[in-house]
């Protein structure tokens, strides 16, 4: 080696590539208040839009009189369904193959539904004008319960679908029924259950909640009538898909639409969907010829844009006497609200709910999901999860606990007994998935040891005795979870949204001086893409991450991709980045060989350079190669150093983890305290440990909130009871637990760098850990199942019903 050449490790470290806890490049502007979020945008002549919304959950709209509103100085227009109908924009397609009213067309179906769109010179005038729009309603019977919605005499919610017995996902069997989705072998499963030693049965409810990012949804639509181009800045987790959808429904050619996602203040799934606000802003800009901004307020966000969960999961699980699971049966009633606006791949109307066999080797299983309309807001997005994986994980992790009770077995032991073994991967699940890799036993043992599981059980047993003796009123719960996620949607052969295959993309351009820009089809909402994608690339192409700019979110410049949700950025776009980097490296190899006057095969890669095999003093660094690519005429090689990769993943990735929560519960007040929360994640190759840890903290905090109090609750009249942050539980630093993170590394065999994705694991895994801790605290007193959220009054009610209040 040349004396001047620093050692490999030193050069690798300087790149800040894979495995480096590189500080985030995004932070300089965010910490100085120089982020650029959609509401920061101010365009010349910009108007402001605001909605008149329905106070009723179900009503006929008899008339809308906007005369007084229009007469208010500063009001430019008031749009109603009647104005949108000639453009055929009064309804819009949903991501789930249904359609949704943009503005109330004859009736309203949920509280907060958009009825009219007021456009005014500023947001104050718009708000005043909203008050002046007179809407006459005739109230109709309300259905908020998905089971009652299926009664013969239940009111017809979707009159537009009356008589249509075929929906986007097959047959409908009732006027409020959307679809039935079946997976697995029903007959075989029922037969296994029928002859099993032990069968545990329980209804597991995962309540309705909301992603509630700190920034609400909004956009600025700007139609430039001179050049015929529509530009929309907005809170879009999938800007390219939004462009395609906007083109299809507006008739504006796709090249004349530019969608820009600026900085996004958190998404968590809430910003995947297309909302009436976007459509109305676009129409208003086309009508007025000036930019129109729409920013929803927090109540609107919680009441009208996409909710998550709301799955009623009836489960049966069978096992041998000694605890070997033999079968799993699940029937889910999915409350989709007034329109089926779930954000799932087209062929998966219940997302990846069929991952509900979890981490366990369950030979026979059956899943059926029935989607149902109710008078609630539409949505059903993946709130920091991959398409219903949270519901699936919660279901199986609760059913395991229920089975453990039935068997009288320790729940940790029951899990270990049934884990898919390391040597079974790739593993074909009974519900159709091929798990790529895993080593569950190793993770599980590490986790149990880390928390001193046996010691905790001993302490718990002593606590129970002390409680019975009246020496304490506090119970101790140990919440266990071993989850397996399915993320990285996904292979084009079975994953698409509105017909768009769920590949993703990266385009790299190396500049002459050896710095680079890479553009991707994804969009960060806090995940730190500008930091981590540069790290992937740094390791692939040997240029320092600090010299690589990552750009996303502008459809005019970024390559086509399906966006960021479902933990798909690293598995799909991250793979595209590595693959594009490899193309760069392949070309660089030819250039290096030419410059070194050897055959292509005679040079080899060495961190940040190509060296002549056997002659390490002869090399060309990537910086030198970059410059050469712009100034050398190399026979058979085009000038420049660029590459693009569209990556269609061969399979999903299957991150997993072991979470353990230790919780103290006050039987008298229902209050709780998290004494310990241990999170072991295996997300395959770790790109940036600092960012992974941050993702785990954040996701677990969302899980904490969901499990312990966060919900979108309705009364019988369909009124939203949790419309502000007083009642919708977002924990502060005070309530939030402290987390201990840990990891194992089982790379994905099919991902170019072995990474699996981590953003959503902690939400998926923590909810059952918290919930199981609550249940576990009461196990000794006979509790089997109690529905989330476990807020104080619900925990208190459990204690009371178990007779613990004396």
């Amino acid at each position: 080696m040349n004396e001047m050449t620093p050692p490999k490790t030193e050069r690798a470290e300087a790149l800040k590539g894979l495995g480096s806890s590189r500080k985030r490049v995004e932070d300089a502007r965010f910490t100085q208040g120089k982020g650029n979020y959609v509401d920061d945008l101010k365009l010349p002549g910009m108007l402001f839009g605001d909605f008149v919304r329905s106070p009723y959950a179900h009503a006929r709209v008899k008339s809308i009189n906007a005369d007084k509103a229009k007469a208010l100085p500063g009001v430019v227009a008031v749009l109603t369904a009647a104005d949108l109908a000639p453009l055929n924009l009064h309804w819009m397609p949903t991501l789930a193959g249904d359609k949704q009213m943009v503005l109330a067309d004859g009736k309203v179906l949920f509280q907060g539904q958009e009825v009219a769109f007021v456009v005014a010179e500023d947001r104050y005038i718009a708000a005043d004008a909203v008050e002046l729009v007179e809407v006459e309603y005739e109230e109709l019977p309300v259905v908020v319960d998905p089971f009652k919605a299926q009664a013969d005499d239940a009111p017809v919610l979707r009159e537009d679908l009356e008589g249509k017995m075929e929906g986007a996902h097959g047959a409908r069997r009732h006027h409020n029924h959307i679809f039935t989705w079946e997976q697995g072998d029903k007959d075989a499963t029922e037969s296994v259950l029928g002859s099993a030693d032990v069968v545990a049965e329980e209804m597991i409810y995962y309540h309705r909640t909301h992603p509630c990012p700190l920034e609400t949804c909004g956009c600025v639509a700007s139609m430039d009538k001179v050049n015929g181009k529509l530009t929309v800045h907005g809170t879009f987790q999938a800007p390219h898909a939004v462009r395609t959808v906007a083109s299809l429904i507006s008739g504006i050619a796709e090249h004349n639409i530019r969608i820009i996602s600026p900085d996004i203040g958190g998404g968590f799934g809430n910003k995947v969907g297309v909302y009436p606000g976007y459509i109305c802003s676009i129409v208003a800009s086309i009508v007025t010829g000036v930019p129109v901004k729409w920013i929803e307020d927090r109540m609107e966000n919680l009441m009208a844009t996409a909710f998550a969960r709301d799955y009623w999961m009836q489960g049966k699980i069978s096992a041998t006497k000694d605890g070997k699971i033999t079968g799993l049966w699940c029937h889910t009633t999915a409350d989709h609200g007034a329109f089926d606006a779930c954000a799932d791949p087209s062929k998966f109307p219940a997302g990846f709910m069929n991952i509900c066999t979890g981490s366990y080797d369950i030979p026979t299983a059956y899943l059926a999901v029935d989607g149902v309309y109710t008078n609630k807001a539409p949505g059903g997005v993946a709130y920091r999860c991959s398409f219903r994986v949270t519901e699936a994980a919660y279901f199986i992790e609760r059913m395991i606990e229920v089975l453990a009770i039935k068997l009288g077995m320790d729940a940790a032991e029951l899990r270990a007994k049934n884990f898919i073994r390391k040597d079974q991967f790739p593993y074909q699940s009974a519900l159709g998935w091929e798990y790529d890799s895993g080593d569950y036993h190793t993770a599980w043992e590490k986790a149990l040891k880390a928390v001193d599981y046996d010691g905790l059980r001993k302490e718990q047993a002593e606590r129970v005795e002390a409680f019975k003796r009246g020496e304490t009123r506090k119970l101790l719960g140990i919440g266990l979870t071993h989850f397996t996620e399915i993320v990285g949607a996904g292979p084009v052969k079975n994953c698409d949204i509105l017909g768009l295959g769920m590949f993703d993309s990266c385009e790299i351009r190396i500049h002459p001086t050896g710095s680079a820009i890479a553009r991707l089809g994804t969009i960060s909402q806090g995940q730190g893409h500008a930091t981590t994608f540069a790290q992937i690339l740094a390791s692939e192409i040997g240029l320092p991450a600090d010299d690589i700019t990552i750009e996303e979110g502008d459809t005019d410049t970024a390559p086509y991709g399906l966006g960021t949700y479902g933990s798909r950025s690293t598995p799909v776009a991250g793979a595209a980045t590595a693959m594009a980097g490899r193309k760069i490296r392949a070309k660089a190899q030819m250039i290096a060989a030419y410059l070194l006057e050897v055959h292509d095969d005679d040079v080899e890669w060495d961190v940040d350079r190509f060296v002549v095999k056997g002659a390490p003093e002869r090399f060309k660094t990537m910086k030198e190669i970059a410059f050469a690519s712009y100034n050398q005429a190399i026979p058979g090689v085009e000038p420049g150093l660029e590459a693009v990769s569209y990556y269609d993943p061969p399979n999903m990735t299957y991150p997993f983890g072991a979470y353990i929560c230790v919780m103290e519960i006050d039987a008298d007040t229902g209050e709780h305290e998290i004494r310990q929360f241990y999170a072991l994640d295996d997300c395959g190759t770790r790109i940036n440990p600092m960012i992974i840890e941050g993702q785990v903290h954040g996701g677990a905090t969302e899980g904490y909130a969901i499990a312990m109090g966060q919900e979108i609750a309705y009364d019988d009249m369909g009124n939203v009871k949790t419309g502000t942050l007083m009642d919708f539980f977002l924990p502060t630093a005070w309530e939030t637990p402290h987390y201990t993170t840990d990891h194992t590394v089982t790379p994905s065999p099919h991902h170019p760098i072995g990474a699996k994705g981590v953003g959503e694991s902690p939400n998926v895994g923590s909810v059952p850990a918290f919930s199981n801790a609550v249940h576990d605290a009461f196990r000794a007193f006979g509790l089997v199942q109690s529905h989330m959220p476990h807020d104080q009054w619900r925990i208190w009610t459990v204690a009371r019903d178990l007779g613990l209040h004396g």
Partner: protein
Amino acid sequence: MIPGTFDYHRPDSVEAAVALLAEHGDEARAIAGGHSLIPMMKLRMAEVQHLVDLQGITDLKGIKVDGGTVTIGAMATQHELIASEALAQAAPIIREAALQIADPQVRYVGTIGGNVANGDPGNDMPGLMQCLDATYVLVGPEGKRDVQARDFYEAAYFTARSDDELLVSIRFTAPKGGYAYEKQKRKIGDYATAAAAVLIAKDGGTCSSASIAMTNLSDTPVWCEAAAEALVGTSLDKAAVDAAVAAMTGAIDPQEDNRGPVDFKKHVAGVVLRRAIERAASRA
């Protein structure tokens, strides 16, 4: 969430403020910290034509401890109540309670006057003031009058203050003995699921005096004389505490809301009262 329009006034004296309130009647509202009123205005649940901002009135500020008498200006903020060492000496229960109100930002602007005067049953200070047997000093066009906190609250948002009166200060005798403010809530920033203010004085092992008030368990704060009487003359043994809790439970009338059903609230009211009595007794 955009409020409707209003005219803004910033008087520099109590008299000027009262004159504005008198002139505009029920179209006017006084604003102190505004963290109850402004959200209501933004939700357009409160219509205000004339907003009378009290921040310019020096007379409404300050905390004075003079001998055994504590006088707190209506515009003293929760933050100032917490920071005041003199107050912490004279009536430490106020700091204990104020720290459980809202969050740091809100405590910087939220005032004791606003907290006690707007009649929101969720507010913590009214019950505490009843517990302390505080006197509210009101100034109106007719002059000054005193109203006892225990007589002030009529129903949710209805109080003995008339529209043209201003609550200018609060006065009470520094309590003796032990104290506790015990509050159960869902999270920081929440109103009480149930809260208890308790003062207990002891003579030897015997409770010589007691005062108990409960918060957010009725449409007004509940000062419960019978509960206090159940403690006086006892050693604060279990029977006495049981009797106090029973008396209190009979006096409250909680409503179901997102914090929970009525049974739960009644039970929790008993728990927080027991804990408050225990802590107050330990300090007496």
